[in-house]
């Protein structure tokens, strides 16, 4: 009989865990609360936590501003942050939680394609806006009608970078190092295509696994044997620091160029004069003189003691657009989606934003470079 | 007919010859004891017979077939089963299951029959469980069927190990110090049990230190020392053999 008891105990544990799970969530219908809830879903722990934290700092700042200006529809804007650890499975859990929580009117997130694409089917089914500030995977907005992004896909950015390398910098023999993820691969594809069309020659293509590879010496040595004019980087700042350092240690002296992903004050600290003269495209640049950008940079610096990067910038304006859509549409998820889709010429910190009919954006980009240990406008 | 014939068997570990050029034979139905001081190479000899060690030289012919270097899991199919000096039961399996594992080589249920619980599966399981229980009854362990092996008393574990080996229906049973650690009453019972096996026609090769036991039940005795066979013969011959006395007690005894 004892074992039967254990078995029923087991079932009870299972059931009580399930029920406890229900109670963690308010399944109640939206009542006339005094709050408007928007969720921010991003990696707040794990390898990618720094990007999620950029989202958090920027959206908190924006929410404060909105509330200081009277909130949305006269109600207070409340943000709820959910950690997805940049893990596909956890992102879908988060999505399901948010879709089921009727108070949540829209979601800013997720950070990377792994998370955004895995979660998208849940958002689409639940009819909840998923506005990702950073997901550049070409398939993302094809997942459904509720997916939006606030970043140029590489179809837009990489050709600008190719033009920068081939025409502005006048380098023809190009070696490419790209991170082996969806972003890096799309960047490489579009860059290579555009560069070749402009008369450039790709002499080497090398890849690595982000967060796993620290040693680039063998890659750089191979590239050196191909005798390029320039190394183009489809990478993020952390690896770029190491690539530049190791290049210097090996005694190679190639000009470097990259994409907006490299923008981070930490890069100059990491690599010092090894990145001097690096050119890159930029969505957002703190030295930008436009008032919207200037104001954002100042406020961010006051609040967090550091200069915002592009991830913070796009998250900041994403929240602004979503809040605006709610203001017009009211507290109805489908209406919010329709309003958001209509947004045109929104004055964001990265410039003027208009959603295309596929809910993608096309933004202007500038070219910046590192000069005397500082990012400056190159063009 | 000769059941087992061992010719010039040698086992070297590096430079050390643990067993050196031993020849040996057994008839069906015999009980033979292998004695000698610690480190004489007795267990190494067992390990070669059961395929755990591959002999450096020499051959083992069992039942007319050369089985030198055959893997342990195949040796038992040839008909040699053993027990271990330091008991090696499956501690977290029940007594019954231990015996059922002993029947592994004599049973056939594979993935298909197990998965689909065919008629054949139940027949074999029932037959095996019945046989196992019969065997356990012979050593007074029938009521311990569902105990974990690790929870048995020491003497019970020794008996269970013998039964596990018998479950494979071996033609030759190797017992490695079955009486070690037993009290006189238990040893006495063990002796009766081994005799009973012999009466049923079993052939047994025994390593044992308990001389009383050895002398009472052995048909013949082989004596090893430092890997070399120093004597063989009937019990009373061995008792009076000068070399054997020296090996056990040291020179000048």
């Amino acid at each position, binding site marked *: 009989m004892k074992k039967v008891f254990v078995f029923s105990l087991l079932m009870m544990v299972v059931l009580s865990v399930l029920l406890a799970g229900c109670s963690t969530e308010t399944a109640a219908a939206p009542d006339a609360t005094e709050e408007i809830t928007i969720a921010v879903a991003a990696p707040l722990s794990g390898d990618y936590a720094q990007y999620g934290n950029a989202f958090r700092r920027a959206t908190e700042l924006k929410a404060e501003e909105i509330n200081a200006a009277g909130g949305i529809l006269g109600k207070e804007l409340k943000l709820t942050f959910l950690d997805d650890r940049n893990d596909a499975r956890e992102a879908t859990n988060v999505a399901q939680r948010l879709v089921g929580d009727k108070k949540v009117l829209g979601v800013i997130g997720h950070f990377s394609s792994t998370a955004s694409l895995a979660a998208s089917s849940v958002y689409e089914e639940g009819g909840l806006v998923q506005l990702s500030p950073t997901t550049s995977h070409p398939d993302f907005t094809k997942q459904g009608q509720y997916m939006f992004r606030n970043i140029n896909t590489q179809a837009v950015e990489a050709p600008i970078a190719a033009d920068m390398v081939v025409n502005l910098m006048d380098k023809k023999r190009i070696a490419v190092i790209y991170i082996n993820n969806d972003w890096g691969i799309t960047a490489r594809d579009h860059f290579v295509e555009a560069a070749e069309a402009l008369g450039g020659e790709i002499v080497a293509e090398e890849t690595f696994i982000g967060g796993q590879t620290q*040693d680039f010496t063998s890659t750089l040595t191979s590239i050196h044997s191909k005798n390029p004019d320039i190394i183009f980087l489809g990478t993020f700042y*952390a690896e770029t620091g190491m690539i530049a350092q190791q290049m210097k240690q090996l005694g190679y002296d190639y000009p470097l160029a990259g994409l907006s992903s490299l923008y981070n004050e*930490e890069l100059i600290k990491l690599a010092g004069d090894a990145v001097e003269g690096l050119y890159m495209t930029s969505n957002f640049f703190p030295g930008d003189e436009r008032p919207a950008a200037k104001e954002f940079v100042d406020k961010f610096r006051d609040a967090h003691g550091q200069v915002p990067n592009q991830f913070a910038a796009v998250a900041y304006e994403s929240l602004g657009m979503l809040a605006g859509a709610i203001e017009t549409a009211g507290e109805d998820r489908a209406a919010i989606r329709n309003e958001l889709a209509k947004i045109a010429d929104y004055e964001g910190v990265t410039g003027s934003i208009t959603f295309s009919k596929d809910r993608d954006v096309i933004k202007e980009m500038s070219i910046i470079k590192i000069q005397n240990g500082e990012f400056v406008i190159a063009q | 007919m000769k059941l087992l014939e061992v010719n010039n068997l040698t086992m070297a570990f590096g430079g050390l010859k643990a067993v050196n050029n031993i020849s040996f034979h057994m008839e069906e139905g015999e009980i033979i004891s292998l004695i000698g001081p610690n480190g004489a190479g007795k267990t190494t000899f067992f390990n070669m017979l059961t395929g755990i060690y591959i002999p450096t030289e020499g051959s083992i012919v069992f039942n007319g077939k050369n089985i030198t270097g055959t893997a342990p899991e195949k040796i038992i199919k040839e008909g040699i089963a053993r027990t*271990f000096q330091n008991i090696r039961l499956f501690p977290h399996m029940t007594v019954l299951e231990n015996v059922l594992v002993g029947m592994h080589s004599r049973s056939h249920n594979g993935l298909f029959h197990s998965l689909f619980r065919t008629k054949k599966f139940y027949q074999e399981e029932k037959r095996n469980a019945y046989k196992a229980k019969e065997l356990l009854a012979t050593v007074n362990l029938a009521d311990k069927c569902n105990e974990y092996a690790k929870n048995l008393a020491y003497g019970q574990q020794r008996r269970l190990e013998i039964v596990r080996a018998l479950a494979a229906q071996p033609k030759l049973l190797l017992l490695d110090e079955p009486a070690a650690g037993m009290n006189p009453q238990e040893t006495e019972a063990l002796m009766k049990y081994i005799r009973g096996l012999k009466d049923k026609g079993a052939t047994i090769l025994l390593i044992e230190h308990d001389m009383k036991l050895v002398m009472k039940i052995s048909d013949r005795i082989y004596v090893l020392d430092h890997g070399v066979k120093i004597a063989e013969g009937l019990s009373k011959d061995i008792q009076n053999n000068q070399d054997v006395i020296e090996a056990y007690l040291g020179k000048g005894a």
Partner: protein
Amino acid sequence: MFFQQIINGITLGSIYALTAVGYTMVFGILELVNFSHGSVYMFGAFLCLTLMTALGLGFFPAFIISIVITGMLGIVIDRLALLPLRRKNAPKVASLISTIGISIFLQNLVMVMWGSETKNFPLALNLGHIQFNSFRISYLQMIILLTSLILMMGLTLLVKKTKIGKAMRATAQNMEAAKLMGINVNLIITFTFFLGAALATVAGVMVGMYYQSVDPMMGFMAGLKAFAAAVLGGIGVLPGAILGGLIIGVSETLAAGYIHSGYRDAIAFAILIAVLLIKPTGLLGQKVQKKV
């Protein structure tokens, strides 16, 4: 280019070797697959960095203090997480899960304390390099290789010649017997953990300095590679760890240089598997005689 690639490989290999020496030490004594080693390595590097930047200590004082503190962290880990398991005679896998818990705990703790960004680690020992015709070697690279060799020899002496070393070997061979011989097994194991954590810090700081950057996830891959190198060389064999590290480093580098940079780790692991199929107990590991 080939010479340069070999140099690159040896440098990467000596980084692995440096991490693996400490790993194999604990591994050899406890036969514990230890997933906390990588996170202790990362913790040590962050601690040293903080001592340098926040307290303004010089490199060497910061280095030594962080070795001692992290060593004590090793003791805490053993006493809090692993000793209770040993007391209960828990299966090895239970300890493995505990070390995973420790590694998750430490990584996230560091992230909360120091943030998740990659941080610059100052190049405190900038000693320049020697230029040969077609390749160059920096002094730091040589120091890393030398450090791992010195540590290996020092540890070998410690294990072979000192009293505590003998006790360590006895514990490794047979914990029960060691206890009966009057060895305070738990003290020996705690000491081993202290040493393991201290060695992890040496590696973490040197590697942080070599790459001039540290981040909270840096220990993960380093831990796996150290594990791989230690197993490849033969568990618990100190020179084996060096050899294993060098082989993995060189094969990875050559794979990236001549085959495909995307497959570098895959090729390194494939070589590891192939070697183990030929030498099932690692390159320098002793073949275990079955005890019957």
